């Protein structure tokens, strides 16, 4: 039987107000997904929600990852070049153009402009703009004529177009080599002291956090996890809950002026309604009018939220440096 039917049946029998409510230690019923507020450009999704491919685009069409696809931008819509020619162009570019423009075309030590955003390069359809500049140079600038034969110039142009086709939405650059960045820069001893003073009333290194850094091996994910209190689970806020990560369930006790108090998982709260999920899987909604009914909310993340306003970046890095030692 569906939970909804159980509730309807209970209500029909007049049992609704006599249901005994246990404290919910079980996994709560899934809260009805709140459709995200669609914002202007920019901004991460709320924690716990996966990062949409493009946060505010109602129906994003995928960018053609290598050109020739049904991308939304001209550089992605151009027919894809011959991979062998592109590969040859990459090598030629690195040798002939890289010293000034950078091997990745993002500009180089000698001051050559970033070709990923160059108006000329972006507007070029089939070499009609790029070829004359590569062939003849630009008098009065450091752009000198090249001795490359025409097929090589064509390969260089194919490489540049291929790079452009990989520019993402919102101007995200083409993927480059993955750079390993160490985010653990804090002082573990200072972090342990901070933990003792601010976190130890709820958490313990030998208790709930034992083996934390084994369960969450990536330091960045660990930092996101502990700062958010478990809501930001992975890159971008979404992802899978690491094994053993605490479940955080906000509960509430609703006490009407007349009638029994009801306790459950808080599913909805606005100025007009409050809805609880009850242990039997049903939901119960109360109309709000000023202070009636009284609502007492227990949010286990209250402490984490309060911490956001006082945690310095140095504190944060120190605590992370300490927590990564809890293998």
């Amino acid at each position, binding site marked *: 039987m569906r939970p909804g039917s159980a509730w309807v049946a209970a209500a029909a029998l007049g049992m609704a107000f006599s249901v005994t409510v246990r404290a919910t230690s079980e996994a709560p019923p899934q809260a009805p997904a709140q459709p995200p507020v*669609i914002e202007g*450009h920019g901004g991460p999704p709320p924690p716990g929600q996966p990062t949409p491919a493009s946060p505010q685009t109602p129906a994003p069409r995928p960018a053609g990852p290598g050109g020739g696809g049904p991308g939304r931008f*001209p550089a992605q819509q151009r027919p894809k070049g011959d991979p062998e020619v592109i590969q040859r162009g990459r090598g030629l570019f690195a040798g002939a153009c890289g010293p000034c423009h950078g091997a990745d075309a993002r500009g180089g030590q000698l001051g050559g402009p970033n070709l990923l955003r160059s108006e000329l390069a972006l507007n070029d359809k089939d070499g009609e703009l790029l070829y004359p500049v590569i062939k003849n140079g630009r008098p009065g600038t450091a752009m000198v004529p090249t001795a490359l034969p025409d097929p090589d110039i064509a390969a260089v142009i194919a490489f540049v177009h291929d790079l452009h086709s990989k520019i993402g939405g919102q101007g995200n650059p083409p993927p480059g080599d993955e750079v390993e960045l160490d985010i653990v820069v804090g002082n573990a001893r200072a972090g342990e002291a901070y933990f003792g003073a601010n976190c130890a009333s709820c958490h313990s290194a030998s208790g709930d956090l034992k083996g934390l850094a084994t369960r969450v091996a990536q330091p960045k994910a660990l930092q996101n996890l502990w700062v958010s209190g478990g809501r930001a689970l992975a890159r971008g806020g979404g992802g899978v809950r690491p094994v053993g990560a605490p479940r955080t369930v906000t509960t509430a006790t609703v006490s009407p002026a007349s009638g029994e108090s009801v306790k459950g998982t808080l599913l909805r709260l*606005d100025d007009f309604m409050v809805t609880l999920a009850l242990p039997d899987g049903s939901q119960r909604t109360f109309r709000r009018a000023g202070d009636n009914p009284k609502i007492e909310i227990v949010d286990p993340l209250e402490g984490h939220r309060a911490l956001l306003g006082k945690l310095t970046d140095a504190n944060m*890095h120190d605590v992370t440096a300490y927590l990564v030692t809890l293998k």
Partner: protein
Amino acid sequence: MRTPSLVLTLSLLAMPIGLAGQGPAPTTAPAPSLDPSRLTQPLAEDWPTYSGDYTGKRYSALTQVDRTTVKQLSLAWTARLSAGNGAGGGGRFRFGGAPVIVGGSGPADLPAVPANVKGTPLMINGVLYVTSPDNAWALDARDGRELWHYFWRTKGSTPIANRGVGIWKDYLFFVTPDNFFVSLDAKTGKERWNKEHADFDQQYFSTMAPIVVDNHVIVGTGNDIDSPGYIQSFDPETGEIQWRFYTVPMKEGDPGLDTWPNLQSAKYGGGHPWLPGVYDPETRLYIFGTGNPIPAYTAGRGEGDNLYTCSLVAVHVDTGKMAWAFQTSPHDMHDWDSAQTPILFEGTIDGKPRKLVSTAARNGYFFTVDRVTGEHLVTTRYGMATNWAKTIDKKGSVRRNPIKDPTVPGALTSPTSGGTINWEPPAYSPDTKLFYVTERNGYAIYYLTDPDPRGSMGLGGKEEVAVGSAGNFLTAIDPTTGKVVWRRPYPSAGGGFGGGGGGGLLTTAGKLVFAGDAGGNFVAYDAESGAPLWHSRIGNVSNAAVTYELDGRQHILVASGDMLYAFALYE
């Protein structure tokens, strides 16, 4: 048991279809004949431009719906908008729909983006003009019936939103995501002409509602890649360009060039004027906000102020020449544009009556400036949790604390890159003398992922993880002091993660403020106290409500995605 209920459902469904199909589908709207001088009048029966009038107040003089009568506010009609070229349009009453007029040069097989109304409908002489990216509709403002539907076949681009149309006499103007500036005959929806106003190859995309001032139609650019922002003025008859104003230096000798490492950096520096500005007929100044510098989050644009990004800028509407500029946040590092529509109002500061302009910026700070001279008067923080600033300098600009820039080990910063406010328009009431704005207090850890000293491009080079919030509010500010007078929380079960204020605000002489809360309710708040007085749960509100009066009846019109809801007092 199943069969009878199915029959009942079908017969219920058939009723409205039958009613809507009784007459021939209309193909024309009454002539709007909006004389541009009408736009300088106080806002009442009509809603003839993006913000209602030129001041940006979104304040209507209508009083039929007030703090007492609002309890009787009831649904007058709904309409569902169907984007694209399918099924002859007509929304939910398909058989009564108007033919779709198709323009644009894009491929025929690109599916339409679903309708999502995130702009301001205009209402003139009984007709509503509503948009969604690539689509414009004329609807009967009395019952939402479709009069015509124009669909633009796009070449591509980023269809995040369309903020609405502009109207000059009988001509209607709007922009498409692939950067066409399109003029339609407002009566029939037939295309008059289209002009490419920004370069699609450079990944510009367009969202702004055109603003009509006399014989000028003003349109601004949007783009997240590294191209320069600008506004242009067009001739409403011919679509010829009258002038173009770049928000960043484009050549040697341009003002502000010394705030960039070089011309190359400035020319690719962003500063897009995403949203409509306001206009002061006395000085003939068009005043608007500019976007953030690009690359948004990384190195690559020196240590200078990056003028005129994140600024309030005033240009002469006849020449496009800059009269003054005030920078809200030099060298922004978080994609916090200051493109929000500002508000013009009169106020007294230090005992002296002043002509003022205020803006509540995405970065969590509030600013008031003399709108004639550009003299700075007020800077305050309205984002309760905002923590990125080091100082307010002598000019009133807010200078960043570089440790709150995206860093490799992460910086815990408020607001999120979505901002304390984003595009959603604020409102001002001359009755309460309060400036109303949505205030969001999210925190994010900003990680620098591209430490290359050349910088990244666009919005690249960072990873942002939202980690919590100190709450979202409907916030009332005294704009002459910048002090927050009250905050009305948008409660949510998510423990401070909720939304609220999506779409923006409307205020009226009935001493009400209309907004969407975090629970999917469209709410009327008391403009003096912020107490909620009436609500209807229509889903997430996606635009700022507008109000208009027809046949002596005040309507409040608001959108939730592809649905329009018109409310009026129950009769």
